[in-house]
């Protein structure tokens, strides 16, 4: 259905998702030309979606192995609470900023080991367990009270903004954007240029074949969940910085947004397929949609419905694209 040009088809295969992002931006520009392309609004979109981008990167590695990590939202909250309490207790900031990611890695290791050592039948189960455990721990730490006032250094990654002398003050490039870019490039390199990365794709493509060909599948899976946990913890550090607070109910349902972004970005739920660029585009699509609907004062109920429709539509377009590619 996409015509017979193999070059067009290959272009769409790799960059079709980016075309969707551009189309969405054009649509938003058409509805609110005065606001949408303003520097302030573009800065907002970046700031509001940095955490989701990190969660989605972690979720992506897991989904490439045909797994799932439901615990990311709760683990993010746990990392946030731990670092907020530590900051309040006067722990020096270089240690505080490490706490978020370290809590995340620990939770991820628990997920990975639970999956491989306990041999639970599906990661859904192990991470559903840790979703609840981490959320409970987050509330337990302070008996549910939020913790505010974290200090400038701790807040830096989540809050700093570089105007480079060219942007008018409230606008600019947020530090969180650079965290996301570095994370995305690092993830691309890891998945495409290291043997571990190739093993991850191999496991997702066909676990049995990967095992037979000598890949230590269990070891790779433990790493994969630790990576996902790391990004959840880093997301917690960013969100804590942005809100100047740790609150135990942070990131509720964030795992579902992360899964949606990864799937919209073209990764296969059955593993072995997807790109970092696609995931970033998926995050942008979710973010642009929320931003556009908010700017147009669309009711939150309609927003939910539209997001649901976009998830279905995005994956359906992907299915059509794939059919076209196979028939050729």
């Amino acid at each position, binding site marked *: 259905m996409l015509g017979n040009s193999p070059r067009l088809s290959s272009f769409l295969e790799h960059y079709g998702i980016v075309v969707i992002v551009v189309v969405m931006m054009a649509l938003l520009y058409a509805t609110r030309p005065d606001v949408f392309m303003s520097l302030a609004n573009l800065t907002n979109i970046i700031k509001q979606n940095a955490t989701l981008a990190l969660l989605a990167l972690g979720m992506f590695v897991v989904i490439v192995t045909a797994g799932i990590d439901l615990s990311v939202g709760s683990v993010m909250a746990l990392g946030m609470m731990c670092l907020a309490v530590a900051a309040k207790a006067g722990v020096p900031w270089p240690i505080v900023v490490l706490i978020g990611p370290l809590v995340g890695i620990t939770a991820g290791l628990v997920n990975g080991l639970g999956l491989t050592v306990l041999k639970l039948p599906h990661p859904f189960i192990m991470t559903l367990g840790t979703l609840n455990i981490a959320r*409970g721990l987050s509330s337990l730490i302070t008996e549910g009270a939020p913790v505010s006032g974290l200090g400038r250094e701790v807040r830096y990654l989540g809050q700093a903004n570089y105007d480079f002398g060219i942007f008018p003050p*409230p606008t600019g490039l947020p530090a969180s954007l650079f965290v996301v870019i570095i994370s995305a490039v690092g993830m691309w390199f890891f998945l495409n240029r290291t043997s571990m990365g190739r093993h991850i794709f191999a496991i997702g493509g066909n676990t049995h074949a990967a095992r037979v060909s000598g890949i230590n599948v269990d070891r790779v899976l433990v790493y994969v969940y630790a990576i996902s946990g790391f990004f959840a913890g880093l997301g917690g550090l960013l969100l804590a910085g942005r809100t100047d607070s740790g609150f135990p*109910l*942070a990131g509720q349902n964030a795992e579902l947004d992360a899964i949606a972004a990864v799937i919209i970005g073209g990764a296969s739920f059955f593993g072995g397929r997807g790109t970092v660029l696609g995931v970033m585009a998926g995050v942008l699509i979710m973010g642009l949609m929320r931003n556009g609907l908010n700017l147009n004062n669309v009711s939150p109920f309609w927003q939910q419905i539209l997001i649901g429709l976009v998830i279905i539509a995005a994956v359906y377009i992907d299915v059509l694209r794939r059919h076209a590619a196979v028939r050729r």
Partner: protein
Amino acid sequence: MKKLILAGAALALMTSTALADKFLLDMKGPGAGNPFWAAVEAGAMEKGKELGVEVMVMSPPTESDVAAQIAQIEDMIAQGLDGIALAPTDPNALAPVVDAAKAAGIPVVFVDTKGTNEGVTFIGTNNEVGAKLAADYICGKIEKGSEVAILQGIITQSTGQARASGSKAGLEACGMKVVAEQTGEWDRAKGQAAMENIITGNPNIKAVFASNDNMALGAVEALKSAGKLADVMVVGFDANPDAAASVLAGEMTATVAQAPKNMGAFGIQALVDLKAGKTIDPVIDTGTVLVDKSNAEQYK
């Protein structure tokens, strides 16, 4: 002597738990999850001690887990008890189980959130009046005809509805222009994001009413990073300790205090009265107070 008193106290405690009337306070969310519920719980426990009755406190493990709350109440009715003070997660969903309790001869009162059952007393804040109080405060501080915004809670909940409509009515009544109404779902990060979008689309707003303090504090962060905190006044609702500190620091301008301790205390008192065969008012207001720099210290 001291030992004797302790032994006496222990004995009194044991006998009282064995013989005293047993009342249940079932809240929307755990006291450990939210200082508000912790205060409701404390009020009920203190009142219970004062009146010499046993008070059990329960809640669903997470706020708004309707099914868990229904199951809890069903279990407690089966065990038998002398009265239930209920903060329903969802009034309609909880209505049948409230009817079941009444059919079993167990008195019920609603605290915090009004239920739908006829003839059941409601003890709590009039949220519309509270939100109007905040709106009137804003009206007194900024020029008539100014652009203002409202950060809504979850408006499928009656509290979210009442605060949204009460503030809107109040602001419009005094001639303010409500240019944006967006939800932050009671959440600090979501409130912050909504506020960022509001000030981008409406750069001239002079005030925002946030339906709870979490969102108000998020709005403060959004205004700070946009360099607009001096131009936009932020009024919240709940008077939680963080908000009180923010008011004292001159960031938030004001907030509205409910009296959660009264809800717990009045709830238990009402049940004891009902048990004794007295009649009680259909609505008992626990009151709201405007909190600004002059009185924020006591809420810290």
